[in-house]
């Protein structure tokens, strides 16, 4: 298409830019685009299936002759298997297959490491059979925290390898040490964050069925259907034709890219027994093997000049993804800080391997960074919001901060932290978030219009609860002049066109623009037919209000020969854009009981952009969910490993605390729509950014309420009381 002028920005800050649009792409929806259904409150297209209980998730697939498989997991953090005997289990009632993963002599490095799997006629029989597997362990010393793993003489998680993999980090910028040395004020603090498990409500699991023609059908609770197809092929044997279904997925949050041991067990046991096999994680094994957010220790040091400007910042982080890597913390980002230096180290402990978890590295990184910004503001004697404005010129941030401050009533905050009386103290704090994804090429969407007037949109990727199906229906409906419920969306099937794994908040902004292209392609084909009938030019046929030109949509569809027509759309490269990523901020109003140590969030305001808002309801839901997970991370969740044997002590939902209904504050969400012209819809990633700043905003509010600086997550009553005990009240 070539160079196109388009309006970008938000509110009153709109300006015209020129973007280079690839051939075959329409002009992007600019800030002044007249849109009918995009941006409105579209009801989630699969909501009724879910609310009625009719939606079939992987866990709900029941096939004729299906066996139930369960995995036996090691109960200790470190051990060597002395003996593994499955012979008794094989003879148990109903048992049809046994699959050892380990043998005598093999090491165990975390609680949850897989030992064997069994397949039986019923779930109860499979449980019995697990108990009949005889395993003897020779227990070894464990390390369960960053601190103990780094201590001199600590047991090595991988014998012969240091527990600490030191010192990665970006290029230092300028002379941070020098800047701090010559600073007017030096601020220094260390922050700790806990391990959080994904705790997807539907655990990991797979149903595997070999068909008569040798092909394999897999239902998998996954956030990457096409990735699973490849992995399942590797397990089933090269050349096996695999089809993966994931029509409904009970959450993933980053943990469900892999086939997981349950998937491998289901496929191998299906092959072994010649029967379909379902293998799901229990809640316990979901906690221990399903992935987690690494713990962290983050040391920060800054030098401020006499105006309160940060001149140098040194950040040293340690993160532990258990026996896995990837413990890095995403900081310092967002703010400008003069000279800077950062190192990050991975620390091994005897815990289950980390997995990508909704904005990997960011919630922990921003908890430290935005807490530290508050500490620096306090040291400089400046209002925290004014202090942040000194360290960012970003116009989106500034607009969002002003809006959030107004909505929470920033002026109500304590001018002096901790000032007040009584045992209940109120305070207000804030923090910010940034995310860099606006989607990528590689996806295709097909739109099928049938002669009976029905419309379908097809993409093989999955909707894990984020609302991707609704986004596709909305975009296609916009192009065809229909209402979103008139577009039936099929997703979660690898026989449909290629789509991305749901990671990095890329699904909607990757598939959405392809859906627009597919909608336009289908529209043009139908317009040709309608034009012939109406005796007008195809380009003059307008699709609006359920009409094609002067024809009713259904009448126009009757012109289709051969039953249906197919429009197809590819996701092309992103354009030079107004803004590469997305921004957001959250303000928290909390009440702290300084006698019980309980922190009660009263209200949270979340302002978030993700480029153009396509479906407002699902957009707000995503942000609401991010805030609630953030509250849960800030105040409750903590994977606790026994320090002597490495066993997780709270691998359930009773003792692993997830924020519940009674913990909810009022939450106000602002869908901050921005025309960014980064792709034909101006879409950007949303899933991850809204969970990033919540913990820091709450911690800053707690400081404002009490004058207590809590530098360790979760901020449980014991930590509040320990801090309160050191203060003169």
């Amino acid at each position, binding site marked *: 298409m070539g160079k196109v002028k388009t309006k970008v920005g938000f509110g009153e800050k709109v300006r015209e830019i020129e973007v280079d649009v690839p051939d075959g792409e329409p002009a992007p929806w600019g800030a002044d685009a007249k849109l009918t259904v995009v941006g409105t409150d579209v009801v989630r297209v699969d909501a009724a299936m879910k*609310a*009625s209980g009719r939606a079939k998730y992987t866990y*709900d697939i029941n096939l004729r002759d299906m066996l139930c498989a369960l995995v036996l997991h090691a109960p200790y953090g470190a051990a060597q298997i002395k003996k593994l005997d499955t012979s008794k289990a094989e003879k148990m009632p109903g048992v049809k297959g046994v699959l050892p993963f380990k043998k005598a002599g093999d090491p165990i490095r975390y609680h949850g490491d897989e030992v064997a799997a069994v397949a039986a006629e019923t779930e109860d029989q499979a449980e019995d059979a697990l108990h009949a597997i005889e395993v003897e362990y020779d227990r070894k010393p464990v390390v369960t925290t960053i601190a103990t793993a780094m201590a001199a003489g600590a047991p090595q998680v991988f014998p012969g390898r240091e527990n600490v993999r030191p010192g990665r980090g970006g290029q230092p910028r300028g002379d941070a040490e020098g800047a701090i040395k010559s600073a007017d004020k030096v601020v220094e603090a260390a922050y700790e964050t806990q391990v959080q498990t994904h705790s997807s*409500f539907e655990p990991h699991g797979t149903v595997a069925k070999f068909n008569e023609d040798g092909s394999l059908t897999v239902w998998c609770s996954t956030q990457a259907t096409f990735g699973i197809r490849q992995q399942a092929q590797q397990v089933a044997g090269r050349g096996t034709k695999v089809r993966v279904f994931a029509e409904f997925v009970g959450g993933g949050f980053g943990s469900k890219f892999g086939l997981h041991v349950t998937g491998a067990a289901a496929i191998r046991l299906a092959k072994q027994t010649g029967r379909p096999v379902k293998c799901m994680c229990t*809640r316990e094994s979901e906690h221990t093997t399903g992935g987690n957010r690494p713990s962290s220790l983050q040391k920060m040091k800054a030098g401020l000049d006499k105006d309160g400007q940060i001149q140098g910042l040194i950040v040293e982080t340690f993160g532990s993804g258990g026996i896995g890597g990837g413990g890095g913390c995403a900081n310092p980002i967002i703010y400008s800080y003069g000279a800077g230096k950062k190192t990050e180290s991975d620390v091994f402990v005897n815990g289950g391997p980390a997995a990508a978890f909704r904005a990997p590295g960011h919630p922990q990184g921003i908890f430290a960074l935005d807490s530290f910004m508050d500490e620096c503001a306090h040291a400089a004697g400046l209002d925290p919001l004014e202090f942040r404005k000194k360290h960012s010129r970003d116009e989106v941030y500034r607009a969002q901060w002003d809006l959030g401050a107004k909505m929470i009533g920033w002026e109500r905050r304590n001018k002096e932290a901790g000032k007040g009386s009584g045992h209940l103290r109120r305070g207000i704090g804030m923090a910010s978030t940034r995310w860099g994804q606006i989607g990528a090429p590689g996806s295709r969407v097909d739109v099928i219009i049938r002669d009976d007037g029905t419309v379908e949109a097809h993409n093989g990727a999955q909707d894990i609860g984020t*609302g991707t199906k609704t986004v596709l229906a909305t975009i296609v409906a916009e192009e065809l002049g229909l209402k979103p419920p008139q577009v039936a969306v099929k997703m979660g099937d690898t026989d449909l066109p290629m789509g991305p794994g749901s990671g990095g908040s890329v699904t909607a902004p990757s598939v959405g623009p392809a859906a627009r292209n597919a909608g336009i392609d289908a529209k043009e084909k139908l317009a040709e037919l309608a034009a012939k009938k109406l005796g007008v030019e195809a380009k003059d046929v307008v699709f609006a209000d359920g009409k094609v030109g002067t024809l009713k949509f259904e009448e126009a569809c009757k012109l289709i020969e051969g039953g249906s027509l197919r429009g197809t759309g590819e996701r092309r490269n992103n354009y030079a854009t107004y803004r590469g990523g997305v921004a957001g901020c959250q303000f928290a109003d909390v009440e702290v009981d300084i006698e019980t140590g309980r922190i009660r969030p009263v209200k949270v305001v979340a302002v978030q952009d993700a480029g153009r808002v396509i479906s407002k309801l699902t957009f707000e839901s995503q942000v*609401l969910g991010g805030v609630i997970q953030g509250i849960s991370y800030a105040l409750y969740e903590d994977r606790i490993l026994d320090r002597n044997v490495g066993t997780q002590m709270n691998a359930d939902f009773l003792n692993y605390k997830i924020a519940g209904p009674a913990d909810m504050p009022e939450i106000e969400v602002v869908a901050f729509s921005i025309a960014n012209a980064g792709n034909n819809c101006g879409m950007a990633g949303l899933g991850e950014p809204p969970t990033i700043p919540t913990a820091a905003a709450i911690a800053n509010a707690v400081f404002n309420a009490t004058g207590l600086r809590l530098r360790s997550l979760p901020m449980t009553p014991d930590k509040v009381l320990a801090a309160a005990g050191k203060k003169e009240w």
Partner: protein
Amino acid sequence: MPKKQKRGKGFSRREFLTAGAAAAGGAAIGGRTAEARPAGPKTLGPKKVAVTLNVNGKDRELEIEPRVTLLRALRNHLDVTGPKQACDRGACGGCSVLVDGLLVNACMMLALDAVGRKIVTPEGLMEGDKMAPIQEAFCAHDALQCGFCTPGFVMACQWTLNRRKSPTLAEIKKDLSGNICRCGTYNRIFQAVQTVAKKR
């Protein structure tokens, strides 16, 4: 969690081997029970027994080991998969069903204990393809994301609406406190309950 009461003197999951059959349950279990012991309470299992469960208004016959929970009987034997097995320990409410109008964690009740009672799952709130008002409100408010906790929440909300005419926000929060949502939809669930309460 006061709401998740287990009624009757019947089996608990751990005690089924020794517990006596509850009067209500025993009568309907049918002829294949283990022989009665002269000196003690009647013992069932471990072999399968034939039972009839009234699920969503229909009598369903099945053969299960006495230890099988109501949840597994529904999901694995009757293919009623609205109730979800998310924690299997009564800690999340994903398997909430109504048993004789009382909200129950189906994973914490033996199927035998539900014999002779009316079991309602989210599927049973529907009239044909028409959803109940609370289900419609869930859709209108987008009170769901991945949807895996939704059937359990729908039942808990229905129970609240059954027992309270116009529940306050605090009452709704309290009544729903046996349920967890991982995606984070709570506030919209509260709105869904309030909308239904206001409209009727």
